[in-house]
């Protein structure tokens, strides 16, 4: 059937492939941002707080921004419900801006520095090639211990054993206690070249995005409840100032970068994002569907005679319906497979835009191919198929035999 009219089949397949490529690109990008995989293995059971608003109710002035270390220390570390609470400085830009050098050497390396705490190593799963993470004891007493990536260790020490050695971070000496495998920049919270404790940095550098890891996602409401109680505690201790901690939001919302100055603004921003997504998917589905539907109608018109004969020999309405739909499904599935492959190409080629990572970075393969993605492809194929061939098939099955045989489509 497909071979009968190669030109039109090609067009139909291309149309489907295009639509599925666009939709799958969106889905695969989202999937990469949300999947729980090493080193960010606990995304699904982590809540995030990355923004706070402090309001002076007496003078009606306010300050907002990322969470300062004081807030983390006073109001978030004491939380009881989460398994672990950790804060890490946000990565503002793709340009590394921490100066790394070796004592006595004039060579300077620019690196991405993450400033964090001991719980960070419990929430993330780094693979240590040598050494260990810095401990809570080292963190509490402000010992200058650092964990570095394999590449950075190689760059500083040029093949010598780096473990235990001292190097300079913005001209302050740090001792290397652990070396980890490099992390892909796809993982916004885990990515970095070196990791050091908050307590070893000046106050102006101590701004964090906070992760609250729960035993399981069922604890989320309880954690949010406890965070609200902490806000109340702040209110009583710092009157007339009041504090709002954004969210805490789950990974999905966190990745979308939704901001707001109170709970209502966040909720409405989430709703807007949802509507936007539905709208875009609708456009991406509807336009190719109308397109293909027009083609199917023309194709069915050419085949009215065949359908008439089949009906005259006793084919039921639904037999015709299913036949037309099934024939179309083959086109959709071929298009779907091509589209999926193309979407991987697109995600890979345009990763700096879609994932906001440097163009030369790697994307872990296990984030790309997963059961939900394959399921999504099939679902999208089915929807396109139903949308594009549903009406023509229905009309074909309803045609009167005598009209079909006479090729009279009125």
């Amino acid at each position, binding site marked *: 059937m497909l071979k009968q009219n190669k*030109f*039109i089949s090609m*067009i*139909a397949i*291309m*149309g489907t492939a*295009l*639509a599925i490529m*666009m939709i799958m690109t969106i889905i695969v990008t989202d999937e990469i941002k949300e999947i729980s995989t090493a080193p960010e293995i606990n995304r699904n059971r982590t809540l995030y707080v990355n923004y706070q608003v402090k309001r002076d109710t007496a003078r009606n002035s306010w300050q907002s921004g990322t969470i300062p270390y004081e807030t983390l220390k006073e109001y978030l570390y004491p939380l009881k419900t989460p398994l672990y609470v950790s804060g890490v400085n946000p990565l503002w830009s793709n*340009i590394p*801006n921490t*100066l790394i050098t070796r004592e006595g050497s*004039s060579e*300077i390396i620019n690196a991405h520095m993450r400033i964090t705490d001991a719980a960070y190593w419990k929430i993330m799963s780094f693979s240590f090639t040598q050494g260990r993470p810095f401990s809570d004891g080292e963190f509490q007493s402000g010992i200058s211990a650092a964990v570095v990536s394999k590449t950075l260790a190689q760059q500083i020490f040029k093949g010598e054993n780096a473990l235990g050695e001292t190097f300079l971070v*913005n*001209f*302050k000496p740090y001792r290397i206690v652990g070396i980890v495998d490099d992390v892909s920049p796809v993982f916004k919270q885990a990515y970095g070249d070196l990791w050091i404790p908050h307590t070893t*940095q*000046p*106050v*102006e*550098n101590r701004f964090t995005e906070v992760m609250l890891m729960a035993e399981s996602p069922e604890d989320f409401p309880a954690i949010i409840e406890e965070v609200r109680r902490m806000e109340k505690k702040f209110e009583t201790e710092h009157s007339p100032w009041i504090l709002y901690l954004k969210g805490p939001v789950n990974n999905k919302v966190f990745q979308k970068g939704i901001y707001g100055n109170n709970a209502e603004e966040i909720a409405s921003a989430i709703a*807007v*994002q949802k*509507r*936007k997504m539905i*709208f*875009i998917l609708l*456009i*991406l589905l*509807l*336009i*190719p569907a*109308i*397109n293909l*539907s*027009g*083609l199917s*109608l*023309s*194709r069915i*018109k*050419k085949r009215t005679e065949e359908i008439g004969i089949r009906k005259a020999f006793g084919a039921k309405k639904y037999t015709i319906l299913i036949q037309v739909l099934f024939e179309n499904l083959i086109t959709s599935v071929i298009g779907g497979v091509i589209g999926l492959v193309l979407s991987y190409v697109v995600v890979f080629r*345009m990763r700096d*835009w879609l994932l906001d990572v440097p163009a030369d970075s790697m994307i872990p393969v296990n984030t790309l191919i997963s059961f939900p993605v394959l399921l999504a492809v099939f679902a999208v194929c089915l929807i396109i198929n139903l949308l594009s061939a549903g009406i023509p098939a229905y009309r074909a099955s309803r045609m009167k035999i005598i009209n079909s045989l006479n090729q009279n489509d009125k």
Partner: protein
Amino acid sequence: MIRHIFKIIWNERKTNAWIVLEYILVFCVLWFCVDYLYYMGKCYWEPVGFDTKNTYVIEMQKRPDTSFNNTEGNGETGEVDKLALAQTFLNRVKNYPGVENVCFSKWAAPFDRSSYMSGYYIDEDTTHNVTFRLRWVSESFFDVFRINTTAKEISGWDTPGTNQILITPNREGLFGNEEYSAPPEDVKKLTSSTSDRKEHTVIGSAEKMKDGYFNSYFCNILLPLVREEYDLREMQICLRVSPGADKDFEERFTKEMREQLMLGPYFMSSLKSIDKNARIMNWPTDDLNGIYAITAFLILNIFLGIIGTFWYRTQARRSEVGLRLALGSTRWGVKKLIFGETLLLLFIASIVGVNICINIGHTELLELLDIPIANRIDAGIGNEQEFINYALAFGLLAVISLIAVWYPARQAAKIPPAEALRDE
């Protein structure tokens, strides 16, 4: 001719309905894409008020060990002579080959995200407290960013006690806000609305300025940055290099000056091209790429849809076309008929589409969907935009449709009349 085409379209109304429906949808989406792109283009090509070509910004940082034990976090160590260090810095950078001039500023560098606002009264008026954006700049700022002013003399404007300032107007060329404004050349004096009621003398005005390509022109006040404020970590340090020297400047400068610019507790952490940085920080990459992707998707779809439908149609109408050719119609005439049919379909759809778009544009629907929209008032765009949108959207679709229909039309025109007639 048109009546004839109408008749043909009516005969094929069932398949045509699909094409028109698709045209309408695509037209509406394209309309808003064009609207946004036009607005972005207009903003981008407008002057920002600064000449940032060949300019760079140096970021200085403080060694953490010098301020570490300080709980205030402001890094005050007391012993550091900030002014002397700044002076040394200035001399060293200025002497670097290729550097034309260096300037210090606070809340003033173009495309920087920080800003400082404050309220003032204009001249003798005391009822309207107008908010302005404040920029503290050193004298050389005007040279580095090639800012022309109407002031007679800039040098010495920072003499303490004189409180001399420069002002810049908004889009309309006025100084003030919607409620109260005056032409900048008429403004003589500004009085701060904060408790100190400080008075400033206006010595001239400069071109209108905006903070980024896509921001609005906000009225600015330029104040002299006094020497007591010099602190290499806190200030914005910008420099201009001569046109010939900008090749690999960043790399060369950071490498050769790293040692020289380790001054007391300060060290140079980066040097960035302002232009390049502006393109990264001030560019709505996601929005634009999204629009490009959607536009490309729509165009490809329309292309496939038109080529497919008309290919079927010319096949189905073989005998009709054959008859036309046999009765003396030229091949060009047949092509013209098919081209006309496409354009007429598009025209019908565009009329419906334009009505939908204008009505949607007046509602809040777009905001509810977080679709990037043009800030028309800010960009000084009026109702003429609607005609431009229509022309661009229609033109684009027309070109794509004609390309798509060209192949089927050629097939139709090639039909040998005798063969087509025998089909009957």
